[in-house]
């Protein structure tokens, strides 16, 4: 009888602890959320997988670009920065890595991981050929216009 009561107590305690752990995991309040503009489509992987895999994807893509000239598309750095861009409330411009609101820093500050990507790479998306064309208000030379038109059709391959 006594053994059963002890067993029940243990089970109850275990259940409480389990529920507490589950509650924290489900609430997700502790871990920061990466800002993303879902209107541009889903990320290359679901969020929980991206949390574990993003560095591998980035490194694979990096080598693909360096050695095989693979550029543009959904896995390009340009695409990451475009969907995850955070705009500054006062200036309306995308925030650079200097700001703690930058999507990389949101998590990396929390986990105290320092990456050195941004000592060389630009941390805000660069305007595409189409945007540049619209901003310039001119089409440039023949070759340039052709290239820019192609950039427009392809949706840009700047990365």
């Amino acid at each position: 009888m006594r053994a059963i009561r002890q067993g029940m107590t243990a089970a109850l305690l275990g259940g409480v602890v389990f529920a507490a752990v589950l509650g924290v995991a489900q609430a997700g309040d502790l871990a920061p959320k990466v800002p993303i503009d879902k209107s541009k489509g889903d990320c290359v992987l679901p969020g929980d997988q991206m949390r574990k895999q993003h560095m591998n994807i980035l490194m694979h893509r990096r080598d693909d670009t360096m050695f095989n000239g693979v550029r543009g598309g959904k896995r390009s750095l340009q695409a990451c920065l475009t969907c995850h861009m955070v705009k500054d409330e006062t200036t309306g411009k995308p925030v650079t890595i200097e700001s703690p609101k930058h999507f990389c820093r949101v998590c990396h500050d929390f986990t105290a991981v320092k990456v050195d990507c941004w000592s060389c790479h630009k941390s805000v998306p660069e305007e595409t050929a189409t945007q540049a064309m619209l901003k310039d208000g001119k089409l440039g030379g023949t070759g340039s216009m052709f290239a820019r038109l192609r950039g427009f059709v392809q949706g840009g391959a700047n990365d």
Partner: protein
Amino acid sequence: MTEHSASNETRKAPESAAAEMDAARREFMRNIAAASVLSLGGGLTLYAAAPREALAKKPGEPLDPKKRWGMLIDTTKCTSGCEKCVEACKKENGWEAEPGSRTDVQWIRKVDVKDPATGFMASLPVMRQHCANPPCVDVCPTGASMQRADGIVQVNMHTCIGCRYCMMACPYKARSFVHEDIPEERKRFHAPMGKGCVTSCNFCAHRVDSGRIPACAEACPEGAMLFGDLNDPNSAISQRLKEIPSYQIRADLGTDNGIRYTRLP
């Protein structure tokens, strides 16, 4: 050093083919214009209509290893004092530095050369020569100095440790070391560059990968820089090279440069 060596090497090269070069340029421009018109008709015809020099890859597609990119520079059209190509490169790749800095990064420079025996002078842009047998790649201890399958030689700054051995090995002084942090406004998305790495011209690989020509060639007001695929016998550059004599700087070194000049003192 490079310039003087070059003048000794190719003294036997007097050749003026300005008229022929003009004709080729006109033809080249016609090709591009025709392709532009067709491309306006619909996206599907775009790749078929593009001239061979500017064949585009779709985003996410790897490079074509059958190609070998090269450039023919017509020194008869290049004028002393014109730095349009250098300015365009600075703007495109973000390596402009403070005036007077002795530690500038330099991807391309204009060089005036003179044959001391005859007084014949020429002005030419000198950048990385995109050798087929690059000494910089041979010496790199980490494999950061690399050659792409399409002949473009570049630095993989992710693995560069900044030892500068490649700078010692390059006969063309084409490489530079980044001594200072690059401020955010000078960074270029497609040409990352940072303190502690060696950097140099990469034939505007980001442009070439999306079917465009390098910024210097696009900016030249005289059309003196003809960029294209050396392996394709039908490309404009191959056709020109077949017609007129052209020279590599320090061809005696056996590096087999991808950059050729029509006339050198």
